[in-house]
């Protein structure tokens, strides 16, 4: 391990090989749906809402069922418990996230064209950081909506966190929260990157053996 690390500076310039470059290209393509499809989807059912209320979070906007009417309904119901209105303006992410994804696409393409192992390592680190930050920030948003409740609300409920992943019963609502196509696409991009790194790293070992 230590030896590998000491050798690392030298191997950063090692070529990735065709398969990893192809995988990086695929990862770049996988980033594109993230610009157009929902990252996360929340669906809520109650006896009075048998068809459910739907809220979709994109990289750049909030969207909801019935032409945006569902979001209004969710906010209207939430005002009884003093929850802050879920509004596009509250999501700074919408400003930088599309830009960030675009930047990543360019970096991915750069790594695929130049084909150095070092670029690949940069990408894995950067992409991993981006993904974790995005999810963390989303989780915190959920936490904040459920915890920073107006004390003068008509209905007092204890602080709660809406489900981040899966199902939770909140009062009369069954709430389901699951990743959308964009998140799955990002996961696929991540998988491509890791696979590319794995193959390229193995190849580096193979390439390094004769030179020893």
């Amino acid at each position, binding site marked *: 391990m230590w030896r590998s690390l000491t050798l690392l500076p030298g191997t950063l310039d090692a070529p990735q090989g065709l398969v990893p470059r192809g995988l990086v290209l695929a990862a770049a393509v996988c980033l594109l749906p993230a610009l157009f499809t929902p990252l996360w989807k929340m669906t809520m059912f109650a006896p009075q809402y048998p068809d459910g209320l739907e809220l979709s979070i994109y990289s750049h906007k909030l969207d909801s069922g019935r032409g945006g*009417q569902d979001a209004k309904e969710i906010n209207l119901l939430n005002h009884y418990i003093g929850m802050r209105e879920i509004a596009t303006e509250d999501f700074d992410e919408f400003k930088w996230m599309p830009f960030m994804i675009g930047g990543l696409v360019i970096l991915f393409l750069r790594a695929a064209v130049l084909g150095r192992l070092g670029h690949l390592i940069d990408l894995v680190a950067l992409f991993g950081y981006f993904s974790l930050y995005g999810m963390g920030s989303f989780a915190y948003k959920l936490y904040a909506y459920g915890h920073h409740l107006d004390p003068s609300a008509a209905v007092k409920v204890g602080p709660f966190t809406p489900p981040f992943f899966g199902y939770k019963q909140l009062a009369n609502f069954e709430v389901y929260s699951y990743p959308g196509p964009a998140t799955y696409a990002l996961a696929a991009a991540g998988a491509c990157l890791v696979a590319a790194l794995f193959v390229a790293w193995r190849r580096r070992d193979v390439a390094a053996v004769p030179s020893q």
Partner: protein
Amino acid sequence: MKMSKKSLIQLASVAALLLVAVVFGHCAPSAPQRAKSMTPVSDVAIAAQKTYVAPGDLDEYYLFSSGGHSGQVYVYGVPSMRHLSTIPVFTPYPATGYGFDDDSKKMLGGLTWGDVHHPSLSETKGDYDGRWLFVNEMNGRLARIDLRDFKTKQILGPIPNISGNHASAFVTPNTEYSMMASRFSIPIPKGTAVDVDKYASLYKGVVAGIKIDPQSGTMSLGFEILLPPFDWDLGDAGKLASDGWMFLTAYNSERATGKLEVTSTQRDRDYIAAINWRDAEKAAAEGKGDLIGGVKVLDPAKVPGLVYLMPCGKSPHGVDVSPDGKYVVGSGKLQGVTTVFNFEKIATAIRNKDFTGDEDGIPVLKYESIKDAEVPVGLGPLHTQFGPDGFAYTSLFVDSAIAKWKLGTWEVVDKVPMSYSIGHLCAAEGDTVSPDGKWLVGLNKLSHGRHLPVGPSQPESSQLVDITEEKMKLVYDAFTEPEPHYAQMIKADKVHPIEVYPKEENKHPLAIWDVKDAGLTRSGDKVTVKMVAVRSTLTPTAFEVKQGDTVTVALTNIEQTTDELHGFAILDYNINIVVDPGETKTVTFKVQNAGVFPYYCTNFCSALHQEMQGYLVVKPRG
């Protein structure tokens, strides 16, 4: 054993007594034998399954049933016969606030009653198109209900010269016209006082063609035609083969007055008028006619070719045109047959001037030349509807039954008893060019004994009959609000109602969409309050005016969620309106007394509905 002479005589006497007892002792049966033999064999399980619509499931058809003198239209689902909705038309209806807000109050025009008779769904090429429903009422009025929101949009009339508008609102095959006619002829123009003994010559019947705008549905007077003072009773528009004609029945061709049940029933035949509405439209466009009561009235004596009279026995009530338009079925309520006229023969008789006389200059066609059949349907035939397979269904008031018979062969194939005294009947799309068959509803005048007792004021009955098979089967009894005269049944997928009024369509000048814009503006002693209703606050929650002010409250329900209606009622005032999601309504009133008057949401909306209240504060003047 040998019997004595004495005992033989005794035995003979007993036998004779027994014989006499058997012959004369026959007592009346406990139930009418005929009714017993006509009782339908209804397999309860099949009937239950056919009519059962499980919770959450939807019906196959809408039934729009006239509410008679309730002034309303009732909507039922078929086959469940569940009451779905009430559409107020000519009568205030506090449940939806109809007749309380400024617009609907104005539309009612001061009358708070109307006698709704014949719903007529709009048609395209002779088939229901699901756009509008027209209903008439006796005070010379016609209303249009928009099926986009099931709301009354226009009330036309009272139309000049029309008196007792019963023969209405039958529309033409492309909804070009609806019709109106006088059942109670009067001297015209209205306001003329002439003794009843001059009835035969100085009282006049009138038929009006009500023009309908093909885009907006807006109704206006198209033409009026002067008719003899008969009692113009029912109508139907010709279609396909007979397109361009309207048919209108009349009883009392005796021109009698007084005790009509005797005086108007002396002749064996009265009439069905065949009216060429296309020619009437043309004549009106050419400016023909005499000005009576402010409108041009065409006199058939001066404009020949507009009207012909078809003799029809006896005191005809309903007239119904077959799906292909070839037959005109007239039902004389005081006889045992229904008369079928052949339109081709009618056209030929008109061409050949095959007349037997005239009434006030209107030619009378020769009965024998135009009649195809007298179908022995049973006693008291009133109305006929049609199936998809050449069968016709005629209601029999006196027999209290429905007769099924075949067009062309004129053979009566089946009868089903109705409980009791059926008036109109309604088959699925049964008056269109393509009837569906399947279901038939008998709209009965009497229901006695077939429901839990509810005191002397009894409901009417509407009975569902399955007509999918050769034998008609009674499958369900429903007890409908008074009074189902006629009804029409339309396939549910032809009607596409909205669930909320889209915000962007609300062009009301006083509409507001943000509670920040709510509040009061004053101009002299006129006060306008723009108010917002949204769960669970009426904003403003209080407002103050001065005694003697005229206040207009404009309430906008800014919800866009299905079923989130909000009401607005002020205690001690005759104010109670309901505003649908996305709708704005105004109510204007004068504040007479000082004091504090609570207002609140009447239509239960949310968990905090009770809290949706406020105060009108009226300060004394001085």
